[in-house]
């Protein structure tokens, strides 16, 4: 065992956990004041529920040997994983680290259906989605038996598994639950949005540099490219917003940072700083325009999950193949003359898009039909606000006497 790596991976795991409350505030600030508790709870409850699912069967389905398509039940309840199993870092620490990814991925989807999705149904959805969508795709990409791993698809920290997967599931969810009846015009709390994006940026160092699963030079490289891509995308988004409206939007800069972080995620162990600059600039520009285009298509993906995470993940996965540097991650990209790397990247993207879209829609279709569940909160609940109707709590009590 390598005590340095253990220390770093414990830290990285905690950093990735912090991303989920960060996401809660990022999303929470963007909705109306009557829905902020509900929006935050979609993320926060994932920390509780996804952790339990992960240790009971999620880890085993994702990282059990199984087949090329899914793990098995050999490590159900983490049975058979000894306290000192593993090389470099203990297997249990890898379980904990990966569990944090299983928390944030379904939480990302919730941005699509905020302000109208029934909370109780969400809890059931979360369990089913982790089991039927997240675990298999995680296995495809990150287990040595997985078919995408075998094909050589590059995804260092989860561009495919986390972001494309959550982004397309968000499209499925927005389609199935339908549009909000009266969407708000402005975010209710811009400081929450910026605070959330700041926590995401901070936690992302654990997400990407932790995906080296060691305290080594690859982790250092992933750390710096993560920062560079986030910075470049934030700057790009901010400048374009300034050109379009004459003002630099704080929500725009914060969203740009997140788009850059998403795009560098698959690339973070493969590209250098110049690649990160290009990836950040591409994500900052393309995702900004995608926000408008997708809104124009009439899909109420309320908090632009597909534009930022889905498309950001796709940009990242493609540009990983373009900018990969052999001296960093062991694989040369198109610029270094290895065009063959693009095939597996494209197949990985398409397979994730297709599988996640179809299975997520199927899960939601079934949940909608089950008496007592259903996807959509009642009109009265939506009008009153999900905070009072789902939780009996308000974010801001303004009754004068208190």
């Amino acid at each position: 065992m390598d005590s340095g790596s253990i220390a770093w991976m414990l830290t990285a795991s905690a950093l990735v956990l912090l991303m989920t409350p960060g996401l809660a505030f990022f999303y929470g600030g963007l909705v109306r004041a009557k829905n902020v508790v509900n929006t935050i709870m979609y993320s926060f409850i994932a920390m509780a529920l996804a952790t339990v699912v992960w240790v009971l069967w999620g880890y085993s389905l994702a990282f059990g040997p199984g087949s090329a398509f899914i793990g098995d039940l050999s490590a159900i309840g983490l049975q058979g994983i000894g306290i000192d199993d593993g090389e470099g870092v203990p297997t249990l620490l890898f379980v904990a680290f990966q569990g944090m990814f299983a928390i944030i991925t379904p939480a990302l989807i919730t941005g699509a259906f905020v302000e109208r999705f029934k909370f109780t149904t969400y809890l059931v959805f979360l369990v089913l989605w982790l089991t039927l969508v997240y675990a298999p795709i995680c296995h495809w990409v990150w287990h040595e038996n997985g078919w995408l791993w075998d094909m050589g698809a590059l995804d260092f920290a989860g561009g495919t598994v986390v972001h494309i997967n959550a982004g397309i599931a968000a499209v499925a969810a927005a389609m199935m639950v339908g549009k909000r009846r009266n969407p708000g015009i402005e975010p209710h709390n811009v400081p929450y949005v910026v605070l959330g994006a700041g926590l995401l940026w901070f936690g992302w160092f654990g997400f990407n540099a932790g995906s080296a699963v060691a305290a080594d030079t690859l982790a250092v490289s992933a750390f710096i490219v993560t920062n560079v891509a986030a910075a470049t995308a934030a700057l790009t988004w901010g400048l374009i917003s300034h050109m379009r409206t004459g003002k630099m939007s704080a929500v725009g800069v914060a969203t740009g940072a997140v788009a850059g972080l998403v795009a560098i995620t698959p690339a973070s162990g493969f590209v250098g700083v110049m690649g990160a600059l290009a990836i950040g600039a591409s994500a900052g520009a393309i995702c900004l325009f995608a926000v408008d285009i997708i809104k124009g298509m009439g899909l109420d993906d309320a908090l632009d999950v597909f534009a930022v995470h889905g498309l950001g993940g796709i940009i990242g996965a493609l540009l990983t193949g373009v900018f990969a540097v052999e001296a960093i991650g062991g694989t040369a990209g198109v610029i270094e003359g290895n065009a063959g790397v693009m095939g597996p990247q494209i197949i990985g993207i398409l397979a994730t898009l297709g599988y996640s879209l179809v299975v997520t829609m199927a899960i939601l279709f079934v949940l909608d039909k089950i008496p007592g569940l259903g996807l959509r909160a009642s009109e009265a609940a939506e009008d009153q606000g999900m905070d009072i109707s789902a939780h009996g709590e308000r974010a801001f009590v303004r009754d004068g006497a208190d």
Partner: protein
Amino acid sequence: MLKIEAIFRPERVNAVSTALLDAGVTGFHYQNVTGQGQQRGVEVVTGRGGQATTRSAVPKTLLVTVIADDKKDEVVEAIVSATRSGEIGDGKIFITEVRDVVRVRTGESGADAI
């Protein structure tokens, strides 16, 4: 008795308070309101920084006080002098008749209760 409802720029509220007390007003209350007049709305940026939209979101302060009939000119002048900048958006004053006033502590009514 007259009810004075004055809408003005929020940053003038301290000047108005002082002017009203100088004019002999015995009490008033105010709240922050949002609305639209000749100044129209305010431009806000939406769509993740991608679009500018105008909405009726100009913040103003609405102050309410009740005065004796003979105080009208003095109080109106106090409010105007404390709020006028000459630009669109200075606000408006509404004056209505009040049928009765009751002071809760003593049960007095009419002009004595103001």
